[in-house]
């Protein structure tokens, strides 16, 4: 944003000599007796030479300015990348610290356990935390893989896929206490088939739906719906959950980002980052709208290629 403002103000620079020229000309004009006529004469060859020098200087100046702008942009990009990296490492550190602390405590409990029940409880707690770390590592690898992985481009029947995702979500324990609905157009025609990797697309839609299950409460409503026009398919997951604060909304797709409202919930913090990566690899887009206290709407748009 700042950078864009600086770029705009740079274009005000040429106005300065123009304004100075206008000012000086008005001044000289008002003092008519001090406004002598100046005649310049010279050989055509000298004029050509002078013109060449002026053009060369202007060009050199232009190139210098372009270079300077490019360098500034590159620095800004690398600074942003370094900042992203630092942020990612901080979040990773945080995601590792909690399960490790729990494991350390759990191990201490295992060795101090006085009876079989206490030992079993401690071992169970350690196993749960190990699973959590395992999921984090698996999701990190998925994210890294997605950058280079060869994508399958087979026809994917989206109606089938959405029904499968919905069935899996309905089988989750949280689904019992929420109203889940699925709406897929069938008239005048069903959703088009798109080219893509079915397993990855399944993962993307499921992650969004799973998030809705995770962040809503008993009595909330969750809708999975789809629509299409000739060029794209729109898949939406809407929920009547707590919603996301405006300050967090820009970051929900970031790796390991947890807004204040998302602390203490299970998950690797990579679910939506994976969704975004998968959708981008399919040439699509993701978006999120939310109103605190009302709910959240996550949308995935996938291109239909004819």
């Amino acid at each position, binding site marked *: 944003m700042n950078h864009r403002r600086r770029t705009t103000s740079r274009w005000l620079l040429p106005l300065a000599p123009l304004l100075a020229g206008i000012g000086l000309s008005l001044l000289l004009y008002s003092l008519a007796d001090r406004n002598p006529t100046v005649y310049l004469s010279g050989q055509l060859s000298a004029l050509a030479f002078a013109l060449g020098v002026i053009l060369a200087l202007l060009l050199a100046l232009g190139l210098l300015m372009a270079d300077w702008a490019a360098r500034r942009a590159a620095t800004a990009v690398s600074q942003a990348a370094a900042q992203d990296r630092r942020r990612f490492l901080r979040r990773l550190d945080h995601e590792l610290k909690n399960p490790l602390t729990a494991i350390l405590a759990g191990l201490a409990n295992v060795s101090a356990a006085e009876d079989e029940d206490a030992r079993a409880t401690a071992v169970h707690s350690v196993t749960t935390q190990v699973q959590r770390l*395992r999921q984090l*590592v*698996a999701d990190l*690898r*998925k994210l890294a*893989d997605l950058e*280079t*992985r*060869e994508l*399958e481009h*087979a026809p994917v029947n989206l109606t089938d896929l959405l029904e*499968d995702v919905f069935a*899996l979500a309905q089988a989750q324990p949280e689904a019992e206490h929420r109203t889940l609905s699925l709406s897929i157009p069938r008239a005048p025609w069903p959703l088009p088939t798109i080219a893509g990797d*079915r*397993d990855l697309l*399944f*993962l993307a839609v*499921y*992650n969004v739906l*799973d998030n809705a299950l995770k962040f809503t409460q008993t009595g909330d409503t969750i809708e999975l719906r789809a629509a299409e026009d000739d060029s794209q398919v729109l898949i939406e997951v809407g929920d009547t959950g707590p919603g996301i604060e405006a300050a967090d909304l820009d970051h929900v797709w970031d790796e390991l980002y947890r807004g204040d409202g998302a602390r203490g919930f299970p998950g690797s913090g990579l679910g939506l980052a994976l969704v975004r990566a998968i959708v981008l690899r399919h040439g699509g887009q993701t978006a999120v709208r939310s109103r605190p206290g009302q709910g959240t709407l996550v949308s995935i748009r996938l291109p239909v290629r004819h």
Partner: protein
Amino acid sequence: MTLPNSLPQPHILLVDDETAITENLAPLLARAGFRVTTAGDGRAALELTQSQHPDLLVMDVLMPRLDGRAALRHLRQAGDWTPIILLTQVGEAVERAMALEEGADDYLNKPFDPHELVARIRAVLRRARPGQPPLVAAWKLVCGPLTVDRRARRAYLDETELTLTPKALALLEYLITHPDELVSRDRLLDAVWGWDYPAGTRAVDTRIAELRRALGDDPVAPQFIETVPGQGYRFVGQVEGDR
């Protein structure tokens, strides 16, 4: 499942530079009925293989001095076909092609369930034909009318090329190189997909159905892929490999 008592304890050479891994896996393998020797890098592994002739190597890839891949190539070039399980990922097509060149008998992604390693070791030992290349190192696999050309990444049934998605072909490749072995859906996910997925086991079933359609295989009386209810799949044909 335990090995018959009449057989001597199979000797496993466990190679990993991370002592946390060897220290914890060695007793576990010993409890599972194996005699275990450990090594910390590829060079030590080569020396121990020559002097002690283990029945199987379990080897990590990233190691100092000589990494697992180089050690494996070294052994294979010298004509040593001691079964080897490499602890690495072979999810992507490139890795798959590389794995084929290398001639390892099986792969397991870290982090893995230690019981899965025990199961892999037993399966590889059961499959191994002493001194001979394993099927997983074969370029071409033939089972009756079915031919899988792994170099060209094509499969033929009665010389007609099958139209398969890359995932289905990779699945067929895994099953045909592990004939007569009960493979769980989770194992297939790990070995062929390289990822865990929600409802991943259903993804496996969908691809198996695709394979069966292409192969014209009847699940009730299968010629190639048998369903073992509640457990997984088994490739039932007699397979010949050609390197």
